[in-house]
């Protein structure tokens, strides 16, 4: 049997040396923590298969309702494509709200939160692990909606710039999950209010992000959304790239500019998340909120 960790009882090694980790050790611990926290998410998907119905098939039907609204209005076919794409991306937004932002509140009530803070990894690793684990479900949902809806409703994609399309898919994820980390740290302090805030951040965000229609139709509000909401920016860019032949209303930047906006959002949200998590942890430690169950 191999020896356990080389931390105790070695000549010349004491607790003060043991506490002094190299940068490599810190990074590896954070990466392994990401893997560790993603693990229960992935296992959960395999052991509770009802999510296939509730997280994929039923939401597909909800998206279909908006397709039929456009059909009732004899809308151009690309609008069906817009709705389908929007419906696919809601998966990620819901993952951010429910599987990240609100997660800490649930973790606190279960008693896991204080164990995470008592461990040596950076807390962002935990959030990132949650995000990765949740992304498995979200990606499956998004892909299913796109494929099935594309087949059933005859959505035709016309893509000219695949690399850019990939970029505007990946970048919003970074920005969205960075935003999720920011919300998670806020929700840690807000407590029970957080759940209601999560509820309030669904339909209103869908509206201002143009989930079912090009956000340019919202005029100035749409422009603001593109500037500040990763979901809006990413969706608008993806629509412009995935339906390159469609006629888009004026009012939003071209995809190349939106990629830059998304890159900036990603950096800002992750930096903000880091700062906020540190500040919120300190506040939670000061107020004794890391292990209070109901607030």
């Amino acid at each position, binding site marked *: 049997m191999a020896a356990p960790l080389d931390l105790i009882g070695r000549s010349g090694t004491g607790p003060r040396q043991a506490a002094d980790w190299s940068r490599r050790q810190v990074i590896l611990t954070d990466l392994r923590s990401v893997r560790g926290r993603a693990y229960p998410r992935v296992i959960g998907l395999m052991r*509770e298969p*009802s999510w296939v119905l509730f997280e994929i098939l039923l939401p597909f039907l909800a998206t279909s309702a908006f397709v039929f609204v456009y059909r009732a209005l004899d809308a151009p076919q690309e609008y069906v494509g817009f709705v389908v794409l929007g419906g696919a991306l809601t998966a990620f937004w819901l993952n951010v709200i429910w599987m990240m932002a609100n997660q800490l509140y649930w973790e606190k009530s279960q008693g896991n939160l204080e164990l995470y803070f008592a461990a040596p990894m950076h807390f962002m690793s935990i959030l990132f692990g949650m995000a990765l684990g949740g992304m498995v479900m979200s990606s499956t949902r998004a892909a299913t909606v796109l494929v099935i809806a594309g087949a059933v409703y005859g959505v035709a994609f016309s893509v000219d710039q695949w690399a850019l399309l990939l970029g505007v898919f990946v970048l919003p994820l970074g920005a969205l999950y960075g935003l999720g980390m920011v919300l998670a740290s806020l929700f840690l302090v807000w407590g029970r209010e957080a759940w*209601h805030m999560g*509820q309030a951040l669904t339909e209103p965000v869908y509206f201002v992000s143009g989930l079912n229609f090009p956000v340019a*139709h919202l005029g100035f509000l749409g422009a603001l959304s593109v500037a500040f909401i990763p979901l809006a920016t990413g969706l608008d860019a993806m629509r412009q790239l995935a339906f390159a032949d469609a006629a888009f209303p004026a009012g939003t930047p071209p995809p190349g500019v939106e990629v830059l906006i998304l890159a900036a959002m990603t950096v800002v949200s992750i930096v903000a998340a880091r700062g906020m998590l540190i500040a919120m942890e300190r506040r939670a430690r000061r107020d004794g909120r890391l292990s209070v169950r109901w607030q």
Partner: protein
Amino acid sequence: MSALAPAPPAAALFDAARTEGRGIADTLRTFAVATRLGWQLEANWTDPFLFFIYSVAKPVSSALILVVMLEVIGGPAGRAFRPFVVVGSALWSFVVSGIAGLAWSILEDRERYRVLKYVVISPSDFLTVLIGRGVARLGVGLAGVVITLVVGVVALGVPFDPGVVDWPVLLVVSVMGLASIVGLGLLMAGIVIQTRQESWSYPEAFAGALFLVTGAVFPLALLPAPVQALGLLTPLTWWIAGVREALFPGGPGSVGGEGSLYASVFGHANPGSAEIIGALLASGVVVTLAAVAVFRRSDRRARQAGLYDQTSGS
């Protein structure tokens, strides 16, 4: 009890009448207590502004999404359908509140507050407790409906004339619709008792699927016939149609119309109020009875499998 006083004989302590209960009085009291508890939990806000946002922004945003969709495609011609989508969207927020309300009570009490097992073993009827707990969310949902309709009339140009509203029909379909929504909520609650993973999103997903088949935001006639048939068997379809018919008599309906399954089966284009009420009653009774049966079955299975005090999560 004083530590010094001698204990009375054991036989004198046991009151056999306590095991009998007090029938309807107990049920009413249970319902009242559960309703009050649900309201205290739901309205436990430290910031009323957030409460306002939550109860108003959600349903209003849903309506705005549809209104913009209409405007984008239909332009001025599409405005004739605004009442159609605004009413459907407003009512749908109520549906979601009702379906989610009971299911979320199960999840909260099991996963968060860990009191579900104590509720189950109490002499109160579990079904009554759940329905009482769900009333608060229904109340919030109702507020959302009213506010959305008001916003629709005031800001979105929905033409509303109180003089033409068929108030008796509105009252009847509202009461029957409420019962159906509670029934569907019970069905959802029965399902989440069995799911071992935290399934907070399931009620909304279920409601989202119903959104497709109930004519909430587009006429059923657009759907394939088998799907229309499913819609016609759903009480929510008739409830929404009934509310539309009561508020905007003679306006665009969701059930009938040219080429609809309803027209081909019943021989005329649109159902009248009496037909709507009759269909709502029939479908509502069937769904509610089925939901109660599913719930009872789920309850039995949960006791067999020991699910009431197991938490899960990932």
